[in-house]
């Protein structure tokens, strides 16, 4: 019986999550939770309330727009420059030292400078998010391109394939799993940075602001509603990307794990 349930992985993990939620709810029933930790039921209540009055959907849309714009710019720049540095010695000499120097810097530390320049605007926020998202994608795209099995390139040259074809059909495909991993890391980072930049400065809007306001005004309902909304958005984004990249890298997944 238990084996049968464990065989269905999603069912097992669903049951485990359900168990934790029930445990959490029980702690509330026995008054073991502090006032600022709401029970699952109260959080559901807050989610419904903030959805009905429109604050949660509005904040979610604001956050997702900010997150997506920063993430997209950073990820695209990371893919383009990472692949370029991977295939061109010249570009590598140019880009790599700059990236190595700026990589360890926590990009959120640049926010004050950006704000002095562009003010507390969504542009400033997106800029910091993009900068953060750039690095994991760049590093992975670069490494993925560099670590291509040289014999695969020989196979392509044996077939007399042109440079553009080799880039698109061999190098890019070979680098896809690494690129996809970098994008996945950046996707998670983009939510973290969205929250961080939304809490800084007045009238930012978005889920980060909603959470911050809840904290300042002791409104734990909206605070928890914002946290849960972030969790759901992050999960959905990660799953969508996971599915997409599995389509692109199916053969490589098979090679790595023996099955899909």
């Amino acid at each position: 019986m238990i084996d049968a349930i464990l065989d269905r992985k999603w069912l097992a993990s669903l049951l485990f999550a359900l168990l934790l939620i029930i445990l959490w709810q029980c702690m509330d029933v026995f008054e073991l939770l502090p006032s600022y930790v709401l029970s699952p039921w109260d959080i559901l209540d807050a989610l419904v309330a903030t959805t009905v009055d429109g604050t949660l959907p509005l904040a979610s849309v604001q956050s997702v727009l900010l997150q997506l714009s920063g993430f997209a710019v950073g990820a695209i720049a990371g893919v383009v420059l990472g692949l370029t540095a991977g295939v061109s010695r010249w570009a590598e000499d140019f880009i790599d030292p700059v990236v190595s120097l700026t990589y360890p810097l926590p990009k959120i530390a640049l926010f004050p400078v950006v704000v002095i320049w562009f003010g507390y605007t969504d542009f400033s926020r997106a800029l910091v998010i993009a900068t953060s998202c750039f690095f994991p994608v760049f590093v992975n795209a670069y490494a993925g391109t560099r670590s291509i099995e040289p014999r695969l390139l020989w196979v392509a040259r044996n077939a007399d394939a042109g440079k553009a074809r080799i880039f698109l059909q061999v190098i890019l495909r070979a680098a896809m799993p690494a690129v996809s991993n970098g994008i996945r890391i950046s996707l998670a980072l983009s939510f973290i940075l969205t929250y961080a930049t939304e809490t800084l400065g007045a009238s930012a809007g978005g889920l980060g602001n909603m959470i911050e306001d809840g904290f300042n005004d002791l409104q734990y309902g909206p605070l928890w509603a914002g946290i849960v909304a972030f969790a759901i958005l992050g999960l959905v984004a990660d799953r969508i990307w996971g599915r997409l990249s599995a389509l692109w890298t199916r053969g490589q997944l098979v090679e790595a794990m023996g099955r899909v």
Partner: protein
Amino acid sequence: MERAHADDLTEVAAGLTHSLDELSVSVTDLTKVFRRGNREVTALDGVNFTARPGEFVTVLGPSGCGKSTLLHILGGFESASTGSVEVFGKSVTGPGRERGMVFQSATLFPWWTIQRNVAWPLEVGGMGRKASRARADDLLELVGLTGFGDAYPGELSGGMQQRAGIARTLSLEPQVLLMDEPFGALDAQTRELMQEELNRIWQASGTTVVFITHDIYEAVFLGDRVLVMSGRPGRIVADISIDLPRPRGHDVKGSPEFSDYHARLWNLLRDEAIASEFLSRD
């Protein structure tokens, strides 16, 4: 179906090898010197040999004797330091479709199915998607992989991957097939089966084959001729014709003639192997 296809390949090969006295492969005074820092390592030192169209030549040598380097130069992936390499009268200056390489590992593109892998060189050559896939299916049949076209390389065993790799190289319709210890990474049973398969495929295709190995059984079983290479720097120290009847089945390996060839080659190779194992450490 398979028979018809085999005839088809033979015709192609016959068309390419119109002149019988033309040499398929001609290597003259080939040397290769690698520079490692300010040291020079001579990998090949005055290699000479020729192969006739449709001939199966095996190159046997101790490890590190430069036999892979020789094949890479024939393939056009490395350049010779001095000397000349010609294939059907044309000087080799880079990789080309008329010289198909098969590596020790199958080196299939893991992101494509087996069928697409075999069809890809045809696509590159300008054949349409549908025609190239139909042709790939024919080649997969030739190497005994019918029904595996939709599998990804990662789903196949090492032997099956290598068959697919051979089919992909055959799709180039090469005049010369260059094989670099293609069965070296396979287990003993699979290797024996693959040797028999290769015999069959080669007889069906009629291409010239230059086959690198360190396995004496393999060299004798497959080759019309066995070239024995010395330890580094590599030179060809013997050129032995293998007059065993064709087609060769596995039973030929038990024949007294086979044992004679084996003993003769081992005598030649033994000294070279000892030299490369104990003397040329660097």
